[in-house]
């Protein structure tokens, strides 16, 4: 079904918002529209320590940058990610890649 996807190494997403603005610039989306949204989570661990994690979510507006793909370019969010923690590719390849990481999220995605 979903041929392509985006893998995110969630240990290294710092919540910097680069992917969000990359998407808005690429698609010329106005304020309020975006193909990717980052959320930050702060929570306590059993030992009382605090943990802060961030994770991007692909919205229905994500088209996996089809236009860029035609030029052999990665999606703009993946290319610009400040910590290089995002990967684009065939979902079958990314599934193998995901398994080699302690914590990752693989979005299969079919542009609408």
């Amino acid at each position: 079904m979903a041929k392509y996807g985006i893998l995110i190494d969630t240990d290294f997403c710092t919540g910097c918002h680069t992917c969000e603005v990359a998407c808005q610039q690429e698609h010329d989306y106005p304020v309020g529209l975006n193909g990717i949204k980052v959320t930050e989570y702060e929570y306590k661990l059993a030992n009382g320590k605090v943990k802060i994690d961030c994770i991007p979510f692909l919205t229905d507006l994500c088209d996996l940058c089809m236009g860029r793909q035609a030029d052999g370019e990665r999606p703009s969010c993946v290319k610009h990610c400040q910590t290089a923690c995002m990967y684009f590719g065939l979902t079958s390849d990314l599934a193998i890649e995901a398994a080699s990481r302690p914590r990752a999220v693989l979005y299969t995605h079919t542009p609408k």
Partner: protein
Amino acid sequence: MGKIDVYPTTAWSAGTGCHGGCGQNLFVEDGRLVKVEGNEDHPWNQGRSCPRALAMTQYVYHEDRITQPQIRVGERGEGKFEPISWDEALDICEERMGKIRDEHGAESVIFVQGTGRDIGGPITFLAYSYGSPNWVQLGLSGHSCYTPRLGAMKTTLGEFAVADCSQFLEKRYEDPEWEAPEYIIVWGQNPPNTCPDGFYGPWIVDCMQRGSKIISVDPRNTWMSTRAEYHLQIRPGTDGALALGMLNIIIEEEIYDKDFVEKWVDGFDAIKERAAEYPVDKVAAITEIPAADIQAAARAYANAKQAAIQWGVPIDMCPDGTAVAHAISCLWTVTGNIDIPGGQVIAKPAFGVTAYPFSSEELIELYGKDLITRMNEKRIGADVYPMYKHFRGWASPDVTIEQIETGDPYPIKGAWIQTANVIGGQAARAKFHYDAMKKLDFVAIVDLFHNPTTMALADIILPAATFPEKNSFRSWWTPMDSIKKRVQVGECRSDWEINFELAKRFNPEGLQRWATVIDYFDERMEPSGMTFEDLEAKGGWAMSPEGPGRPYRRYEKGHLRADGKPGFNTPSGKVEIYNKSFEEWGMDPLPFYTEPPQSEASTPDLFKKYPLVMITGARSNLFFHSEHRQIPWLREKEPDPTVEIHPDTAKEYNIYDGEWVHLENDMGHIKRKAVISLKVKPNHVQTLHGWFKPEAEGAEPNLFNVWDYQVNQIIPGPQASKSGFGGGQYKTTLVRLAKITEGGA
């Protein structure tokens, strides 16, 4: 639709606003910038980018940009400006500043910049061409931003040093010489959110991905501190005690690098004795960090084969920030981590080319010893503070603002302010600065947007260009970059072009040998053997070759000293951790700790009234200091100025998430939106600086709502350290929270 051309360039300041260094590709269609992307071929960022760079099209073509010179036509603050031509604007600057120079002397005009960006080069060029020694980050008490650290490093090491993330090697992480630091102490900084002082923040994350473990010194819980092997959750402002305590552990347990100390360190016994005054229990009590954590972190750092320290501005903002920086530099010295792969690598401007002068040596190289010595005679604060006399070329911001009020020993009549929103940004005790600066006879401001400072003070406004609109060069460490103009917006001009033209008017004979600003760049770049166009032709960047500009172990290779002998560039040839320069200047030659000026210990009565320590200045990726609030893609993600409040504290004050509250003390109050968060300890609150609302009315008394939001108006100042450098109280001011009952935000 025309053809789109793609041009590589380097981001530096206006636009992204930052300290720069990233390679960016400009997509230009019919003379218009249509997109910006990271440049894969640039070793700095390797294709990556940031929200501010990716939002450049919204910045460059923003409807509020100032695109023509303007002259004030109403009273100051009325917000009435009319467009004039460049010739008229420069004629007025020449006439008004010339008149002040004739009547009072050139020293009566101050040259004001904000944080260290691309302005340091052109503003010193203009100030010295005009004849004024008074180059100043006005309002930034104690120049508490990097200069204290630079001063401590230069006087002990003879050099500057930074965490080694392979940034001075062309192949970067693939270079076989480089090794990842085993540990990185991230001391008072949040690298994913900031690219400070010639350093790309994400490099620290790159190192983490390559195995580096983190020791975080941070009062807050951040993405990075919660991933650290050791998180030393320090009481703000007590970093000096922590550094001395760690130093004591490392020396006492004999886990320092004995060979290195024996061969290359001068003053070890004196440091050992001083550090012994900071036993771990005492340090634990001062810093509120458990003793066991301090010990474990000190051991991990010292026992690592190679380890680095990446430090931030909170160190400068400690009381006696220079001494704190000195203490921290002793850690990397006694552990032998200097100029080794994955350690503290010596950082030099590429090819010895100066874009922005960081030391007295560089100023002398550029402008000659005579001029710099003469400048010392009238430089504000040089007779008060030893480091102002002997290090770099700043006038003291703390003495300057007093002198505007008193006129003693000579009057200050004019200000040239270049891309620095003093009133809405760096000025501690901002209203005092506002009142004082209102008294100036003439104020010229170079900027891109109106802001509280232009509105309150400007007589003439000159529109500056963003990085895609200008020619410039950058050598903040390595590589050296060229920045080439690809688009034109209105009548905007580059800072270099503006200052070059005005400087020629003030010193026509001295400057006649350069016809254009590019001629001048070529001369500055001469040590590299390349011209501006040569560097452009090479792709816009070049690394220093083997020699003084390339790591590692240059002290063994004879690359650091003028005489070509092995050793460091100090009188003894060793790292002088017993700081003989400080001693000569009447300062303590050894590092020491000073309690913050406001705290439970130093002001117990004030603490009873205001029991929360307010930390300011955390960085956002979306904004650079007081900039970018008008950029839609950025502002959308952080629409309001917020304050982080611990859930227990929120409960005590009966404050709910999202409620507007006041932060207050005896100096006044500001508005913030409450964010209930586990990031701060119950006795701390944290809030961002630099807030005003560009969408609000600009004319006085409103000034874009600056007095509702400017946190620095409740921060005391002037408050410089004994050396003159460091001590701005931006991280340790006592406050309390108050609910806003009526007519809130």
